[in-house]
């Protein structure tokens, strides 16, 4: 009955808990309040026979050790009370006053324990609110991922919350985990600072705080922010509690932000444009040195100016400030607009102004202004335009024909002067190939020059005929000049041409005149050679007997011997007749040269040869010569009779004179019709002539090549003159001892 009452009393007492365990820490009984509390705190359902130590071992190592220690004290017979904390985590723990008593059997042996707990944290409102605060704090700490630590300075034991364990990637909290064991995890570079901070805090009692890097067992470096507070008892530090937060992410962001900022700084200052960023409230957030330079500020001056002064000063440097300000107001009314235009400064510089809103999270927070000084560019463009206009005017007004073609010869531009060649609609040729205008005969040359120009990138010159719109051709001298682009290849070609038709015509005339002159010169040269020959004849052939005559006359005068005198007279006669014969020969030669247009008549070769044979009959008979003739191919010729006879008589008498002493002379006459007219060959079997040695003298006057009494050296010279005077020629083929063959081409 007592037991039951007790039981009911216990069950109905709020905050009163009791349970009993056997020697193996297994439940032998428990109050309903214990069941509820265990469920509430740990979320487990307990039952009789279940091992409490096992349950706690799985739930909380710290609590397990503490509880088992207490149970063991009671199991050895001690009865005691402890005010203790138990709970599922550091901040949800509750404070209990626990009474431990051994249970003995009738023999007094200890068979279990009984534990009676009263939750003292629930006993006052103050404690209640502390717990609530604690719970809220616990939530916050959990949410913020803040680790909590507690360091007992007396026992040098430390407790880490799960968050800290997570930071170090550790699963089991070590009971003996303390300050010394923590140190190896600290980044070597940060150890000293950390120790210093902690020591200072211990010595002065001030709060401790530190940001340091740690290297957990997994090796991934982390940044931690730690702070702690010293708790004292009777003025002596006994405990240090604090927090640890992983700030690795924040540190990285800070670093990235600082990198991004330095990049922005560098970019802003390295650009050639002046930059100014103004907040929506009119404050300047950024400007660069270039901006200052463009608006003529000194750096120091700008730094010390309030924003509104700087801006108004800048505005004062603008040529038309009202217009600019109007534009600014307009932009502020439409903050999302971009603006892109030009402005002029009072110092004459021209700026390209570009403005764009600065947007942060979709909100316009300011406006970026960039100013580019384009004065030089504008000037260059202006002067380029001017020079282009100048050249355009020049080409448009030039008499020369200017055109511009691409590298395929396609016409891009034609100067108005081209009208003269291509007619009123000359512009229709733009886009067509220039080569379609070139004369077919000049096309190959033109293409060759064009390719040379493109490959060598050098100016070329060509004289070409171009098709005229009105028909016919015009001669142009064309100069091609390549225009090379920035890649180093020819882009376009300027062709400048001028008419040279007149010059070409003159050139042709000159060429014609030249060829006439050279033929005249040839004739003159031949005449001159003949004259020289005459000089030679006069010099040699006439002077020779005269000098003999003079010598002989001298002898004659000095001689008294009649016989001798008679001999001199004979020699004088001989010399005189020689001179006469020379004069006669000269006369004949002159006659030939003068009688170019001597009368021609139709002559039968056979008749003429018969006449000649009669004239030379004595010689023919005495030499027993055999004369063979074949005139069937060309029996007759239109030629001066006396010339033909002269030719035949000379060649026949030559053949007879220079007969071979051991052979019966045989002389063949043969005529034939050839392209160049009638030809006659005279072949003998006589002595022949060494042509290598004498060939060049052969047809000269008074040249003989045989030591022969009858050789006078006049014949061949004569007939050569006769034949050539009528447009023919005579040639010789001969070998010593093997006869001679003369070929006479009579000409047309």
């Amino acid at each position, binding site marked *: 009955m007592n037991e039951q009452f007790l039981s009911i009393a216990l069950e109905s007492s709020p905050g009163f808990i009791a349970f009993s365990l056997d020697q193996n820490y297994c439940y032998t009984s428990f109050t309903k309040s214990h069941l509820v509390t265990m469920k509430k705190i740990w979320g487990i359902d307990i039952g009789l026979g279940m091992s409490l130590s096992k349950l706690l071992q799985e739930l909380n190592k710290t609590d397990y050790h503490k509880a088992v220690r207490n149970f063991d004290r009671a199991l050895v017979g001690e009865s005691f009370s402890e005010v203790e904390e138990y709970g599922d985590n550091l901040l949800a723990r509750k404070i209990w006053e626990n009474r431990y008593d051994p249970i003995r059997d009738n023999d007094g042996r200890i068979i279990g324990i009984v534990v009676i707990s009263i939750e003292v944290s629930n006993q006052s409102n103050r404690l209640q609110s502390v717990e609530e605060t604690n719970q809220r704090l616990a939530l916050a700490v959990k949410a913020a991922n803040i680790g909590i630590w507690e360091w007992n300075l007396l026992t040098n034991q430390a407790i880490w919350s799960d968050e800290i364990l997570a930071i170090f990637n550790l699963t089991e909290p070590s009971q003996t985990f303390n300050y010394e064991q923590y140190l190896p995890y600290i980044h070597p570079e940060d150890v000293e600072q950390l120790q210093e901070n902690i020591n200072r805090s211990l010595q002065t009692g001030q709060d401790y705080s530190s940001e340091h890097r740690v290297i957990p067992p997994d090796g991934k470096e982390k940044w931690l922010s730690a702070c702690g507070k010293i708790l004292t008892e009777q003025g002596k530090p006994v405990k240090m509690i604090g927090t640890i937060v992983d700030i690795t992410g924040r540190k990285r962001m800070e670093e990235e932000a600082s990198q991004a900022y330095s990049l922005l700084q560098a970019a802003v200052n390295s650009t050639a444009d002046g930059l100014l960023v103004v907040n929506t409230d009119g404050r300047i957030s950024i400007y660069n040195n270039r901006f200052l330079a463009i608006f003529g500020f000194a750096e120091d001056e700008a730094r010390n100016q309030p924003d509104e002064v700087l801006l108004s000063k800048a505005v004062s440097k603008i040529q038309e400030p009202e217009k600019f300000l109007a534009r600014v107001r307009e932009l502020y009314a439409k903050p999302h607009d971009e603006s892109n235009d030009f402005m002029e400064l009072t110092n004459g510089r021209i700026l390209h102004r570009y403005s764009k809103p600065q947007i942060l999270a979709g909100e316009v927070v300011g406006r970026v202004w960039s100013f580019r000084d384009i004065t030089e560019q504008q000037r260059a463009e202006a002067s380029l335009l001017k020079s282009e206009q100048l050249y355009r005017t020049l080409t448009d007004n030039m008499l020369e024909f200017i055109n511009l073609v691409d590298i395929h010869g396609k016409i891009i531009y034609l100067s108005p002067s081209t009208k003269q060649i291509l007619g009123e609609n000359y512009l229709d040729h733009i886009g067509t190939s220039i080569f379609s205008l070139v004369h077919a005969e000049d096309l190959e040359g033109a293409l060759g020059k064009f390719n040379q120009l493109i490959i060598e990138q050098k100016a070329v010159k060509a004289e070409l005929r171009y098709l005229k719109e009105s028909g016919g051709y015009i001669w142009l001298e064309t100069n091609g000049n390549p225009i090379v682009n920035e890649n180093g290849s020819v882009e376009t070609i300027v062709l400048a041409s001028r008419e040279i038709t007149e010059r070409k015509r003159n050139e042709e005339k000159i060429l014609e005149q030249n060829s006439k002159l050279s033929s005249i010169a040839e004739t003159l040269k031949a005449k001159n050679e003949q004259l020289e020959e005459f*000089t030679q004849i006069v*010099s*040699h052939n006439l*002077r*020779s007997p005269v000098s003999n005559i003079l*010598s002989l006359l001298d002898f004659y005068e000095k001689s008294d011997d009649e016989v001798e005198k008679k001999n001199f007279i004979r020699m004088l006669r001989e010399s005189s007749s020689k001179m006469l014969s020379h004069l006669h020969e000269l006369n004949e030669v002159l006659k030939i040269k003068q009688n170019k247009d001597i009368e021609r008549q139709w002559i039968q070769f056979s008749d003429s040869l018969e006449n000649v044979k009669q004239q030379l009959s004595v010689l023919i008979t005495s030499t027993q010569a055999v004369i063979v003739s074949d005139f069937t191919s060309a029996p007759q010729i239109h030629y001066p009779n006396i010339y033909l006879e002269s030719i035949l008589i000379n060649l026949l008498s030559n053949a007879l004179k220079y007969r071979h002493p051991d052979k019966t002379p045989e002389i063949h006459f043969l005529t034939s019709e050839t392209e160049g007219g009638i030809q006659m060959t005279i072949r003998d079997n006589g002595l022949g002539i060494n042509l290598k040695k004498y060939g060049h*003298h052969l047809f000269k006057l008074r*040249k*003989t090549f045989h*030591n022969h009494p009858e050789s006078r050296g006049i014949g061949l010279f004569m007939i050569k003159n006769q034949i050539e005077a009528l447009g023919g020629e005579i040639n010789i083929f001969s070998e010593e001892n093997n006869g001679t063959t003369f070929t006479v081409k009579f000409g047309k």
Partner: protein
Amino acid sequence: MPIVALVDDDSIFQFTATRLIESAKLAQNILHFENGNEALIYLEKNAANTELLPDFLFLDINMPIVDGWMFLEDFEKLKTKLTKEFPIYMVSSSIDPRDMNRAREFAEVKDFVIKPVTIERLTELLNSN
């Protein structure tokens, strides 16, 4: 007394020249050649016989077969074989300056003599050494 060679196809010149040389007793012996070829054959044959080679050679320009110029060309080649050196006098009725200039091109040609040749000129030439 020197040996004189006359190379000329003109028999009357051969006669008059010989007579002048003999009358003035200017030579020990006179060699007669009708053209350059005959002279070349003689010189080649007697190249080693110094006593048979001439001391002076009178050379006509216009001759049949081998004329004066042709003789000079061949003589250049023959010269080294000869055991005697002698001067050559060109003798011609030519008064053509081109002939005279051409004659100067040959080192062997010591002088150019225009016909008719006088006794004084002959004496002068044959006494010069």
